[in-house]
């Protein structure tokens, strides 16, 4: 072993700070590497939506004598379950960081606290896209049809991205406030699954009692699913059920704005809660 005094570089030669963008990229690469080593975080959230799209939707179609479009309706509806489950599962990584990982090392780094939250968002987006692509590919292989008109695909893409960011914000907020993984996981059904049932995932929101319809209208998942169906099925009924006014494009624009507001606010809250929890 060489003498440490001979080899270690001169102290004080650095004392630089990375830009926030570079810090976020470094942290995102780190999170990618950690997520790739815990494949259950990617696979587990995919199981339930694929089961819905491939088994339950066709069974419902047969039992209820609905049309083939119902399979497509439910297949996209399951994206509204997949995204919250995926992003919330990724939030477990933040708890692991805090309890047994490198969180304190990252907090000692000369980077803004916000970078630690923002560094997880690209991973949430990338894994969400990977899983949504897998779900759609499997659904297509099962014979489920989608119908994209012109650039309407962009509505779908924007809805997927914004819903993923919104739930990434929820995941980071929850991870910063909940001390243990067990408690975190116990809260997932209430956050990811209960709203999904009210959001027009399996049936239009207008089929519910009026009170629940109004609750559905303020859920981000409702807006996201309406946009996704408009984008990938050319079906604006979800948008009309939410807004009851204007053209499909206008309604889509308003739902996108609502979704963007949710994403911005929830991410902002996540950064604030994390920063507060990181300094006692």
């Amino acid at each position, binding site marked *: *072993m*060489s*003498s*440490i*005094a*001979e*080899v*270690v*570089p*001169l*102290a*004080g*030669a*650095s*004392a*630089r*700070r*990375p830009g926030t963008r*570079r*810090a976020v990229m*470094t*942290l995102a690469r*780190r999170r990618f*590497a*950690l997520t790739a*080593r*815990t494949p259950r975080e990617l696979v587990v959230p995919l199981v339930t939506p694929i089961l819905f799209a491939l088994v339950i939707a066709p069974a419902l179609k047969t039992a209820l004598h609905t049309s083939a479009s119902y399979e497509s309706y439910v297949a996209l509806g399951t994206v509204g379950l997949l995204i919250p489950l995926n992003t919330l599962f990724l939030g477990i990584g933040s708890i692991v960081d805090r309890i*047994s*990982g*490198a*969180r*304190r*090392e*990252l*907090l*000692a*780094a*000369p*980077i*803004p606290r916000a970078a630690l939250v923002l560094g997880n968002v690209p991973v949430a987006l990338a894994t969400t896209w990977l899983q949504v692509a897998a779900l759609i590919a499997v659904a297509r292989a099962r014979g489920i049809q989608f119908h994209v008109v012109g650039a309407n695909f962009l509505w779908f893409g924007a809805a997927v991205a914004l819903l993923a960011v919104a739930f990434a914000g929820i995941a980071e907020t929850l991870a910063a406030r909940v001390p243990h993984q067990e408690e975190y996981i116990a809260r997932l059904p209430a956050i990811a699954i209960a709203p999904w049932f009210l959001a027009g995932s399996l049936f239009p929101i207008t089929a519910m009692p009026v009170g629940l319809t109004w609750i559905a209208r303020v859920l981000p998942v409702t807006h996201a699913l309406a946009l996704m169906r408009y984008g990938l099925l050319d079906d604006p009924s979800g948008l009309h059920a939410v807004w009851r006014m204007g053209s499909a494009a206008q309604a889509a624009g308003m739902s996108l704005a609502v979704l963007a507001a949710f994403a911005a606010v929830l991410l902002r809250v996540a950064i604030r809660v994390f920063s507060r929890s*990181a*300094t*006692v």
Partner: protein
Amino acid sequence: MIEIEGLTKRYANGVEAVRELDLVVEAGEAFGLLGPNGAGKSTTIGMLTTTIRPTSGAARIAGQDVVAAPLAARAASSVVFQEAVVDAALTGRRNVDIHSRLWAVRDPQTDDVAKALGVDELLDRPVSTYSGGQRRRLEIARALVSRPRVLFLDEPTVGLDPRIRHELLDVIAGLRDRNELTVLLTTHYLDEAERLCDRIAIMHLGRVVALGTPRELRDRLGREIVEIRVDGDGDRVLARLRERGIAGSDAFSVGSTLTLPLADGAATDVIAAVDGLELGVLSVGVRRPTLDDVYLRLTGGRLAEAA
């Protein structure tokens, strides 16, 4: 390099972990914060590394205020934590690489630093396969690649077996040879503080109760110590010795053990005087003062017992 003025931390539950701390650690100095668990050492490190917000007072790292300019203060320092703080699923090299990028190091010299710390051959293995000592070496290597002006070592040898602990002490002692690196070490091991530190602050209940070089601190208790074990209450025996003028105000007792510092005079005279009394003496010994005696004198409790 580290300036602390009236630094205080009072937690929401009312516990005052650090009280009016004043310290200056010079550039290139190896400085030890010595004290038991709960003395306020880790809270002090937490405030200096900006994960704990001071209630009042100020602290500067390399001239940068830890509250007003936390990023600049963090850019000048690195920390090795008491417990393992690594991404165990990633390789050692990836852990070091992440640190280098976050500290914006252009030429991290990862392999050279790892070689100096004896972990170069482990760098491409997941950290989960490292032993405790290897992991701690990696953490020190990681902290050094960013060329910090200030290195915080928070109880760096806690939980390590004696052989690895001594190896690690050699490594940390090597850092003292770099006179441009300031080291702030917390520990409750006396031998560690004595071996590694130029100066030591003994903390007790959030306050610094003694400050100086290890020798200065020991010299406060004179040349020699007479240690007497008695059968019964040490306080009662000490009171009798004081009545007879055998023990001074600097003598103290813990349980059935009495410690009598000797600033001047001969130990043989004290032993002869004690022998002439019916005190139920079990044993008498003479030795040089240690930091443990200093701590005991100042706080009334042994470090090891308190830790």
